[in-house]
């Protein structure tokens, strides 16, 4: 049941497209020259996107003292950087049809993604790195899994069965059954959706942050991913923690006390966020 990369790319092209405003934002994730009023107007044209973005903005994790009810208001209180990441998160999570792949637990996927986003954001705050970019990278690091499960559900069901049978990592199972993995699919999706280079690199290297040129964001996502697996958040009985790169871990330079706070913060924040993402 091997898949060629061209088949994966074709499958990705067949997925529902993202709203134009989100495609635009994805390519400019690290840029600051975005016209707020234009952004607010564009998002407001999509009621479903607006509603989900506002629910995310009102999450306790973002610490607003009042409830925001318009995109413009949310931008005023949270800033452009945070809002464009929340808009992206809201749009991407609505893009994949759920329940197509037997054995693929969409809710577990989004629980892991939401927790990774919260954890990556917490790590970034402690490292004085861009928290919003880390949040989106944490949310999207495994998006290749979702792309494969949505576009090639039967093949991906075989991957999941192979993994159960051999008790191996998902990467090993994907490579054995499909001849490629969710990182390949994630990179193809990042190209299709015009992700920024930093985001593309974080997706490409989140399992290999030691490789030259991987960047700090890949290290943050790698550590956040391992923490979330170790916190056992997805609710998967067969959960397993991936090997943690010593280079990435040391790059965080955090004390045990800081990690224990981060674990608590991640557990407190992910539940509400994941419920919104999966809705």
């Amino acid at each position: 049941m091997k898949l060629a990369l061209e088949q994966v790319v074709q499958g990705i092209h067949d997925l529902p497209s993202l709203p134009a405003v989100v495609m635009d934002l994805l390519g400019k994730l690290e840029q600051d020259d975005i016209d707020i009023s234009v952004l607010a107007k564009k998002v407001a044209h999509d009621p479903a996107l607006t509603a989900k973005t506002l629910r995310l903005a009102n999450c306790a994790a973002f610490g607003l003292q009042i409830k925001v009810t318009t995109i413009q208001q949310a931008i005023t209180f949270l800033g452009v950087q945070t809002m464009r990441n929340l808009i992206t998160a809201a749009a991407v999570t609505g893009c994949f049809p759920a329940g197509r792949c037997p054995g693929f637990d969409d809710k577990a996927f989004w629980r892991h993604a939401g927790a990774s986003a919260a954890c990556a954001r917490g790590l970034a705050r402690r490292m004085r790195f861009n928290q919003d970019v880390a949040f989106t990278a944490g949310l999207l690091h495994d998006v290749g899994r979702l792309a494969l499960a949505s576009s090639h559900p039967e093949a991906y069901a075989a991957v999941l069965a192979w993994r159960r049978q051999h008790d191996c990592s998902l990467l090993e199972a994907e490579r054995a059954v499909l001849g490629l993995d969710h990182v390949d699919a994630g990179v193809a999706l990042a190209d299709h959706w015009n992700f920024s280079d930093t985001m593309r690199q974080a997706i490409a290297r989140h399992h290999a942050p030691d490789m030259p040129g991987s960047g700090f964001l890949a290290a943050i996502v790698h550590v956040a991913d391992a923490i979330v697996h170790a916190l056992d958040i997805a609710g998967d009985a067969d959960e397993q923690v991936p090997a943690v790169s010593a280079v990435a871990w040391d790059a965080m330079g955090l004390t045990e006390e800081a990690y224990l706070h981060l674990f608590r913060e991640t557990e407190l924040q992910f539940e509400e966020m994941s419920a919104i993402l999966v809705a």
Partner: protein
Amino acid sequence: MSAESQPDSTSAAQDALQARLDHLFRHHPREDAAGNATAVLRRYIEHYRRQGEQQAGGQA
């Protein structure tokens, strides 16, 4: 819950926690050797869970 039954339930909870951690980290050596970041993560998670149990026990 009676006072006598508490140590047993605490011990059962600790055993269950240990078993789950063993399962989660089943592909990695337990040794906390220098440079073994996975073992360090396991140790921190273990401390975190024990801390949570103690706090829950203190509130009961």
